[in-house]
């Protein structure tokens, strides 16, 4: 079975390079560490919050604050998994072994996605429980309405960020170019667009802005976002699908 062979091969590829371990490890550590720090700070600041802010205080979302940095490591993971093939010249060897380009690309993405999801799941649960432990009396319980959805959503968010990056890297091929676009975009540009009044209405349809809605349990007071948590995730899925299809179409027609 050709697809099973490709999955096995891609698993060997991904486990045999050190970048996998350090990008995914960094995603986990950074997310948890920053989440822990911000949870402690939020607990100490709670008393100085306004009445409105106290009502919409979202301990779950606060414990996920580390995602803003941790997602960058996920982006690096996604980019490297794909663009390593190009930057090393391995792509020619790989495509000579697996000339069915759809099988090759989606086999690779499937393996990396499963791995990213497992690491995302571990990160999400750990950061939630550690964050809640720091929040003390203000903490949320995993059984509270919407909390489990938000925690699993955190794992999905990380997975989709990695997948989106794989699609972009498949289109751009160069790791430097891909990272040079994705990193500042997700770290700066997207949050600027999403917070400036003039661009807010467009900004919230960007993949990370829309996708992170799934990690919120309580919405801010003046929230007029036209989609819910799953709607936001669907928007992110659409972006990811577009990036992957774009990557596939280019791989299909381009010379290796």
């Amino acid at each position: 079975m050709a697809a099973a062979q490709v999955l096995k091969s891609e698993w060997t590829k991904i486990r045999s390079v050190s970048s996998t371990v350090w990008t995914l490890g960094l995603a986990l550590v950074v997310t948890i560490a920053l989440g822990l720090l911000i949870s402690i700070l939020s607990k100490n600041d709670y008393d100085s919050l306004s009445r409105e802010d106290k009502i919409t205080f979202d301990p779950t979302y606060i414990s996920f604050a580390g995602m803003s940095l941790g997602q960058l490591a996920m982006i690096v993971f996604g980019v490297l998994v794909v663009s390593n093939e190009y930057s090393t010249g391995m792509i020619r060897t790989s495509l000579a072994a697996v000339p069915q380009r759809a099988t090759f690309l989606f086999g690779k993405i499937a393996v990396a996605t499963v791995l990213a999801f497992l690491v995302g799941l571990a990160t999400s649960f750990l950061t939630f429980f550690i964050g809640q432990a720091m929040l003390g009396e203000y903490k949320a319980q995993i059984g509270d309405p919407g909390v489990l959805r938000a925690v699993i959503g955190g794992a999905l968010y990380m997975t989709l960020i990695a997948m989106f990056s794989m699609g972009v890297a498949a289109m751009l091929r160069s790791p430097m170019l891909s990272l040079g676009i994705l990193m500042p975009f997700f770290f700066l540009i997207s949050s600027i667009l999403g917070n400036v009044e003039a661009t807010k209405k467009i900004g919230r349809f960007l993949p990370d802005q829309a996708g992170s809605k799934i990690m919120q349990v309580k919405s801010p007071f003046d929230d007029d976002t036209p989609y819910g948590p799953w709607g936001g995730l669907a928007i992110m899925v659409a972006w990811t699908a577009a990036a992957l299809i774009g990557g596939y179409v280019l791989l299909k027609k381009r010379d290796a």
Partner: protein
Amino acid sequence: MIELAGLTKRYGEKVAVNNLTFAVRPGMVTGFLGPNGAGKSTTMRMMLGLDNPTAGDVRIDGKHYAQLKDPLKYIGALLDAKAMHGGRSAFNHLLCLAQSNGIPRTRVHEVLDTVGLTAVARKKAKGFSLGMGQRLGIAGALLGDPEILMFDEPVNGLDPEGIHWIRNLMKSLAQQGRTVFVSSHLMSEMALTAEHLVVIGQGRLLADLSMPDFIRQNSRSYVRLRSPQRERLLDVLHQAGVTAVEAGGGALEVDGATSEQLGELAARHQLVLHELSPQQASLEEAFMQLTAESVEYHAHADHQGPAPDGAPPSGQAPGRAPGQAWGAGRQQPRKGK
């Protein structure tokens, strides 16, 4: 068996590969010869389905590359010794290739042993020398025990021991009845390994013939004569019906007579000879002559003159134009020929 039919690759205005039609047959080493930039690597990439042809196609045992199930079991290729992830160990590099084609893990150990890399199998490929990288690439080509093997410039950058090893490997693979297709820009290298030659220049087919035919057609032998009685010698040769061409330094070059015949002829007419030497144009010179007009990048302008009439016919070695251009291509017969 690899068959190319009208294979063409265009990059914008530039034609890299121009209507190539030839077949690579099993049981021998076929040399794929051409100057740098002739389109050899592009042709090989199209053979492997890596680059899409603008026109024409390539078939491997009658099928397109993408139609092959587990292609490494049909055709193994060494395109570029650096076409691997440097952070991966030699073993894992081969293992991921093997798994993608359903080749058992034991075969990875076998090919590592064949190319002599067992001792460094767990080392990262980026620490490998060029020769070790080349061996790892060859291990990858041998992995599926394929009937067809393709090597792009395999001896580039290798030390003499490595070159010797690769030559013997290619010959033994061909002796086992496999199809071996190897590119080079060095005629001398091909003369030692290939039984059949495909020569291209600027993407066009210049010759497709057996090595003995190539040698017969292209390495004309002649005799070089020098005499203080040059005018008399010319008369004597003319009377004997032998044509002599004047070469530089007062020497004469004679086709169609052996040095024995010429020596005896001179003796009969009591002519003093200062030189009587059989000569052979080297294959390298013959190759340069063949591709002279199609060399893309010249080191400088004052090279041998181009052939008078443009494009040579495809499928046949063009008839060599006799004339001064040949004078430059003559040298002492090589030792051991």
